[in-house]
């Protein structure tokens, strides 16, 4: 019952991250083990569009199709604030016990299947029911939110490069929204360039999400294609082959979307387009939030310092961490990219967000609110020295004038 509290040498320290203070391991093993069952959320959430499509069919009321949208933006942020932060970190012993437990992987395989069922069943529902465009929009946006969650699970599995089955499921779940190139771009691109101006998946200070997305989506795709082409060329293959790990999931998406268009009719064009685009938008939002304004410094040779705990924004809210597979314990994720979600840890004194991603995603869509909340946090992080901030070049002068006030040591 009583969790033991001890200080340990942290994984982040082991990873050479000098500025992280040791994680306080509050091993509440009962809670950590209970979370085992709460991760079912990853299978239950895609169940919401399935259930809502069923209810819409039973009642004839298309407004049911908005359910996941309302749950995500209306209920999750409230639950997140209400449930508070998750103080529990697994100890080294518990990490050893949990990290190779296949149960946690099977949940993600289950989620993969649920996401495909949700997409197809929602597609079937919007094409067969006599409902308004507004209801169809709700169905598409709810599927879009589910697609965003699918990308989180795809992210988790896509990191386990040496486990062929997980990579297969990663491709399958990323293909739900046609974003199969993500795991290549993310592993070999984002993890290398994170918190630098070169990274299309790191947002800059003063850059709104609407500006960021125009750089992020094409930049990420281009980088993925270049990385995959280079890999295939090293193997003496053409990038235009079935060995191309971008083409493989793309074929799954094209096949599935074509079949849905053939069977369910032209309503699939807006439905699938909105669903996929809104899924991508969730990912854009996550990328936007995770490293906003933070920048790694260059050494004398012009080489960037290693990514440290201070280069990621974190949120330790309970509910959103359950739903998002601890993606919000983001500093630990960058220190240990292959560490499975159930054993990711929180650290004191890492850059912190005031709420979980569901709220922050919504906030990011209102740039002036985002800037007024987050800009002071970034300035504070840089101790007023704007030379240390990753600033959008278009507003650099203005931001310097407004915020540059370095603390003198």
């Amino acid at each position, binding site marked *: 019952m009583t969790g033991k509290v001890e200080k340990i040498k942290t*994984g982040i*320290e*082991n*990873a*050479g*991250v000098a500025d992280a203070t040791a994680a306080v391991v509050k091993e509440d093993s009962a809670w950590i083990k209970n979370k085992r069952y709460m991760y079912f959320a990853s299978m239950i959430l895609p169940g919401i569009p399935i259930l809502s499509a069923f209810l819409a069919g039973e009642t004839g009321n298309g407004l049911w199709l908005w359910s996941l949208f309302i749950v995500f933006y209306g209920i999750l942020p409230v639950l997140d604030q209400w449930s508070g932060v998750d103080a529990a970190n697994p100890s080294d012993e518990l990490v050893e016990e949990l990290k190779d437990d296949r149960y946690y992987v099977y949940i993600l395989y289950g989620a993969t299947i649920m996401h495909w069922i949700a997409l197809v069943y929602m597609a079937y529902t919007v094409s067969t029911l006599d409902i308004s465009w507004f209801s169809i929009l709700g169905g598409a946006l709810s599927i879009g939110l589910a697609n965003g969650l699918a990308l989180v699970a795809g992210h988790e599995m896509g*990191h386990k*490069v*040496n486990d062929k089955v997980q990579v297969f499921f990663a491709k399958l779940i990323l293909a739900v929204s046609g974003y199969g190139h993500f795991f290549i771009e993310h*592993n*070999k691109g984002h*993890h*290398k360039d994170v918190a630098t101006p070169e990274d299309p998946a790191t947002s800059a200070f003063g850059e709104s999400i609407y500006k960021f997305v125009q750089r992020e989506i094409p930049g990420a795709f281009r980088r993925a294609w270049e990385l995959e082409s280079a*890999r295939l060329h090293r193997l003496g293959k053409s990038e235009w082959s079935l060995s191309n790990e971008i083409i493989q999931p793309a074929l799954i998406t094209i096949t599935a979307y074509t079949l849905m268009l053939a069977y369910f009719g032209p309503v699939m064009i807006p439905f699938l387009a909105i669903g996929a685009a809104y899924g991508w938008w969730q990912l854009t939002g996550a990328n936007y939030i995770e490293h906003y304004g933070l920048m790694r410094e260059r050494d004398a*040779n012009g080489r960037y310092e*290693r*990514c*440290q705990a201070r280069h990621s924004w974190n949120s330790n809210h309970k509910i959103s961490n359950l739903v998002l597979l601890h993606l919000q314990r983001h500093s630990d994720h*960058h*220190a*240990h*990219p*292959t560490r499975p979600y159930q054993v990711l840890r929180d650290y004191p004194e890492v850059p912190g967000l005031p709420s979980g991603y569901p709220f922050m995603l919504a906030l990011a869509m209102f740039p002036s609110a985002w800037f007024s909340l987050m800009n002071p946090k970034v300035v504070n992080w840089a101790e007023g020295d704007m030379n240390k901030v990753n600033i959008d070049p278009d507003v650099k002068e203005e931001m310097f004038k407004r915020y540059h006030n370095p603390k003198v040591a």
Partner: protein
Amino acid sequence: MSVVEYKKYCCVTCDLVYDEELGFPEEGIAPGTLFEDIPDDWTCPECSASKSDFFLVE
């Protein structure tokens, strides 16, 4: 005199290859340093992943 057989290790996340024969001189790891002799707190120079994230390449 035995000939050392150098091995290569690859970062699972970003694909960077550590070749024992070449070392990483700019990182202070001399040519010929065996992977197991690299300190455990060393991290991938490209993506900052931990040493345990490297796997042996055939």
